[in-house]
């Protein structure tokens, strides 16, 4: 079905029609103003990209441009600015559709982020389709945001969670996954790339297995989209979620992709303006996609900023960036394995630029504080993934996570600072 938006929107030039430059980390670095700053008297070494990525100048400028020149509410006014804002907002949706190769724009819903996307699925599709005794499959390596919404739904409905275990390398046990299906299985919701282990799960295989059992599947793509190109039509997943801020865009904006026929059949999530067709006190009819799921004034600037982030990714050699990142990951593994007493958490064969580790019995918070004194920003804690901590029998871990603007010098600084940690606690 063609969307009403297709009629309103002039077609954008096809993706990748302009030539992109071969990937160059140091030139890319210059596009991110924040990376030039000093922290504690040292150049910032930003290795907390899995928490949130930094923003290129073009994204910052797009936000400023929106508020300076385009600000008005969308889908409402008849005046000039309202049309400008609406066009910019819907153009962003189209960029996202092209970026993830969804079939239609209206399959790409703007939400606050991955967490809201998952909650939306649970509260609409989940409440409509999951009942007492039904089962939802998740995995042991989920972020809490892909556990708690399902747990809440299970509590409400008397349904239960089935959990795909992981092996000690931090990979999903696919054989066990196959055995978890039965006639009560109503949904699979699994992470695409683990925020702690860095494991890149075999998404296509997970989808195929779910579909063999006629079960729809959601993939949590928060950590996948910054590292690799995802293609909704090739993956054939039923739902996919990600956050703008981890994709070099603004906070407070994210995407829920859903197949059109599923979104069409789902009840609305929140009620309010924009999402209706007709309102009287006796009867309300709901609007069509995507408005049905976008009640209230959306995060217009955020959507436009995310569009600018995607323009930026299109302007660099993103495939080259992916390759560069995996080389950097290999370099980091080599260098950090020389730190005495350092143990990696998660050594999957297929791994993105996320490096979690523990150092002897030194608590990750102490590691994080000492690293911070050298300007090295990492994450320390349980990373909202307590089941993983339990699997590896650790209270917490330190995590360095890479983006394509990181360099070997960043890894060197991390390594040197870790040697200092060892000296302090020797």
């Amino acid at each position, binding site marked *: 079905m063609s969307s009403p938006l297709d009629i309103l929107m002039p077609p954008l030039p096809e993706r990748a029609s302009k030539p992109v430059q071969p990937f160059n980390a140091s030139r890319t670095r210059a596009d991110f103003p924040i990376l030039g700053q000093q922290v*504690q*008297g040292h150049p910032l070494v930003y290795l907390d990209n899995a928490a949130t990525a930094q923003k290129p100048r073009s994204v910052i400028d797009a936000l400023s441009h929106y508020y300076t020149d385009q600000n008005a509410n969308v889908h409402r006014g008849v005046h000039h600015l309202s049309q400008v804002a609406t066009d910019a907002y819907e153009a962003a949706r189209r960029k996202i559709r092209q970026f993830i190769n969804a079939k239609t724009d209206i399959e790409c819903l703007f939400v606050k982020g991955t967490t809201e996307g998952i909650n939306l699925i649970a509260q609409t599709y989940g409440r409509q389709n999951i009942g007492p005794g039904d089962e939802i499959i998740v995995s042991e390596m989920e972020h809490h945001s892909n556990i708690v919404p399902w747990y809440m739904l299970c509590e409400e409905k008397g349904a239960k969670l089935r959990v795909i275990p992981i092996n000690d390398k931090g990979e999903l046990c696919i054989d066990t996954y196959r055995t978890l299906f039965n006639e009560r299985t109503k949904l699979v919701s699994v992470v695409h790339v683990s925020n702690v282990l860095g494991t890149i799960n075999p998404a296509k295989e997970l989808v195929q297995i779910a579909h063999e059992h006629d079960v729809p599947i959601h993939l949590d793509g928060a950590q996948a989209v910054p590292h690799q190109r995802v293609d909704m039509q090739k993956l054939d997943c039923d739902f996919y979620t990600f956050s703008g801020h981890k994709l070099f865009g603004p906070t407070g904006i994210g995407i829920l992709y859903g197949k059109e026929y599923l979104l069409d059949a789902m009840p609305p999530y929140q009620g309010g303006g924009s999402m209706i067709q007709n309102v009287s006190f006796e009867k309300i009819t709901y609007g069509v996609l995507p408005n049905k799921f976008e009640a209230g004034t959306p995060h217009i600037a955020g959507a436009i900023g995310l569009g600018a982030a995607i323009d930026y990714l299109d302007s660099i050699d993103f495939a080259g960036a992916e390759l560069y990142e995996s080389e950097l990951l290999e370099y980091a593994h080599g260098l950090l394995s020389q730190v005495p007493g350092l143990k990696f958490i998660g050594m999957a064969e297929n791994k993105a630029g996320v490096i979690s580790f523990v150092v002897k019995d*030194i*608590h*990750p*918070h*102490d590691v994080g*504080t*000492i690293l911070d*004194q050298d300007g090295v920003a990492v994450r*320390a*804690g*349980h990373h909202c993934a*307590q089941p993983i*901590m339990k699997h590896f029998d650790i*209270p*917490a871990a330190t995590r360095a996570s890479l983006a394509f603007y990181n360099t070997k010098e960043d890894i060197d600084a991390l390594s040197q600072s870790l040697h200092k940690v060892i000296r*302090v*606690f020797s």
Partner: protein
Amino acid sequence: MPDLRELYQQLILDHNKNPRNFRTIEAAQRTAEGNNPLCGDRVTLYVNLEGDHISDIAFQGSGCAISKASASLMTDALKGKTVQEAEAMFHNFQDMITKKESGPDLDTMGKLAVFSGIRDYPSRVKCATLPWHAAHAALHNHQASITTEGETL
């Protein structure tokens, strides 16, 4: 710029490595659990009282060097004190690590003064106060566990 040595002083490193009073007290009169859900620090406090005096105090748990050393030095400092004195020390300790200008005279803080540098590391204040909050709960016979992210703190 805060100096790393201010935070990880030898005394703290020593108490982290060899924590004092790191044991359980069987059938303790008072116990309380402290929990920092953001980082996973956990401490269980055990207290016995004789009249108004703390006759024995011990802890168990896992956490960072700051929280462990804080629990160790705290239990040393509180042993033999009255509940009222412990309460005053708790408030002084909190003031010391959160208020730069109006904090207590460091000379009155004994070994606990070693934690004064934490005020330069706001993200680590909760690590140092966790055992104190647990002790406070135990002394007031609050059996419910306390958390750094709840109403108690």
